């Protein structure tokens, strides 16, 4: 029993210490971002735009593909249940609301987490190993300002955009299956979808994806910056970045959904 409680305490300590480190990294990033409004040259533009291209434009294809597939699957599975109530024409509304509220942000975030989070952790981790981060420090350039801030901002700007793409592609996927496979009239499908969707569905989804983007960027950069040693440590940091990000995304998603739809007045 004593041993078990000790393990629990130890685990709790690791979790809390991790949260504290993420918080301090996050507040440093926030401070630099705010100071960028008043001072010149806080954010290295070249790095920011390179990251935005890498995160945004280069990920469009894969996010579209995954989004469309999820929309298709969702329509097929929903139709199976809805059929027993004779409510198959509501497939469109279900797909659209689910994509906008939940699946669009979640899918875009998880794809980006695997694609970009891992890359950030590995890149910064390798820079730690090869003394590049020390080189920045000795040049009087703060590594958080030069490496972390542009990555966080680029991801925060691009992930909501990718979420919109995932939403739209999912809806198109659902529509395609609804019209061809399930035999729903195209006008009816679209009309039911527009009836069901409200603006709140879309902006809460975008708000979530914004929160996820900050989580992914902070966790990945933090993992990268805590690398010491060699290739082994870089590999570990990369895995950790992806695993921790995905777990955090899902936990925060639960909390956000509870707060937005149940705690706040509608």
């Amino acid at each position, binding site marked *: 029993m004593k041993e078990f409680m000790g393990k629990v305490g130890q685990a709790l300590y690791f979790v809390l210490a991790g949260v504290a480190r993420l918080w301090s990294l996050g507040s440093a990033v926030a401070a630099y971002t705010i100071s960028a409004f008043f001072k010149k040259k806080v954010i290295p533009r070249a790095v920011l735009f390179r990251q935005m291209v890498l995160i945004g434009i280069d990920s469009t294809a894969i996010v579209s593909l995954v989004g469309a597939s999820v929309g298709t699957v969702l329509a097929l599975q929903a139709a199976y249940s809805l059929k027993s109530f004779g409510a198959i024409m509501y497939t469109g509304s279900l797909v659209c609301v689910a994509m906008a509220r939940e699946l669009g942000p979640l899918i875009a975030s998880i794809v980006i987490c695997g694609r970009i989070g891992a890359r950030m952790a590995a890149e910064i981790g390798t820079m730690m190993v090869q003394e590049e981060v020390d080189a920045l420090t*000795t040049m009087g350039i703060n590594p958080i300002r030069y490496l972390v801030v542009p990555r966080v901002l680029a991801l925060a700007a691009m992930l909501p955009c990718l979420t919109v793409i995932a939403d739209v592609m999912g809806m198109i996927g659902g529509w395609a299956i609804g019209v061809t496979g399930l035999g729903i009239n195209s006008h009816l499908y679209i009309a039911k979808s527009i009836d069901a969707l409200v603006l709140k569905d879309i902006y809460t989804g975008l708000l979530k994806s914004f929160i996820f983007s900050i989580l992914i960027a902070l966790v990945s950069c933090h993992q990268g910056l805590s690398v010491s040693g060699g290739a082994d440590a870089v590999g570990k940091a990369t895995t950790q970045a992806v695993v921790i990000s995905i777990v955090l995304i899902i936990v925060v998603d639960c909390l956000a959904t509870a707060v937005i739809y149940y705690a706040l007045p509608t």
Partner: protein
Amino acid sequence: MNESEQPIIEVKELVKRFGDRAVLDGINVNIPRGKITVIMGGSGCGKTTFLRHLIGLYQPTSGDILVDGVNIAGLKEKEMNEVRRKFGMLFQGSALFNSMTVGENVAVPLREHTDLSPEIIRIIVRVKLELVGLTGFEDFMPHQISGGMKKRVALARAIALDPKIVFYDEPGAGLDPITASMIDRLILDLSKKLNITSVVVTHEMKSAFRIADQVIILHKGKVLQVGTAEEIQNSKNSYVQQFIQGESEGVIPFKQTSEAYLKGLLST
């Protein structure tokens, strides 16, 4: 004492502990202005740790480090960055940014610390690359050039802001003898032409004695001897002699003593 005779770096009673182990154990040393100082010692004697204190990457447990009269022990980041403007550092593995071209690498400190226009920065980058003998390599990526060339690019980056002091961590490591001696010549050239103070950490005898105005020998976290290259070569100290002759047996035993070995075996 006029300004040029005053040491540029003064280290007083510098102690650094990692846990119980004192890696640096009371170092007192002056680094003269405009000269080349070589710090030598065996592996694990604390020379890299010492260098990292001089550039503010580590904070000392106790003691003072005065750079141009400013104590950098316990200095805040903002003030430390002011001091760092006087520094250039050449890392052992060059530490070039792999996602940038050679030219962009040299331009990083200029872009970050000055308000110069991109055209002027481009000219300065060319001049610095010319100084290290790499004219026309601006658009190469770091992985397209050899190890020796990378070192030279890193040196060009280190002197981009015309520092007063350049630190070199094992400049000859991993290079063939010819390239290594070319780097030595660059260190000498820069020191004489631009009147830069150089601090070189190395364990390569030949190169050390070729370039040094002053040699500092560290051993077990303490300063063993300070002197000119000649004084060190003629040293009476048996450890210094073992070190410069490169003998495996001597004052420093090849093996741990048998007692320690036995203890080590039995304690699991």
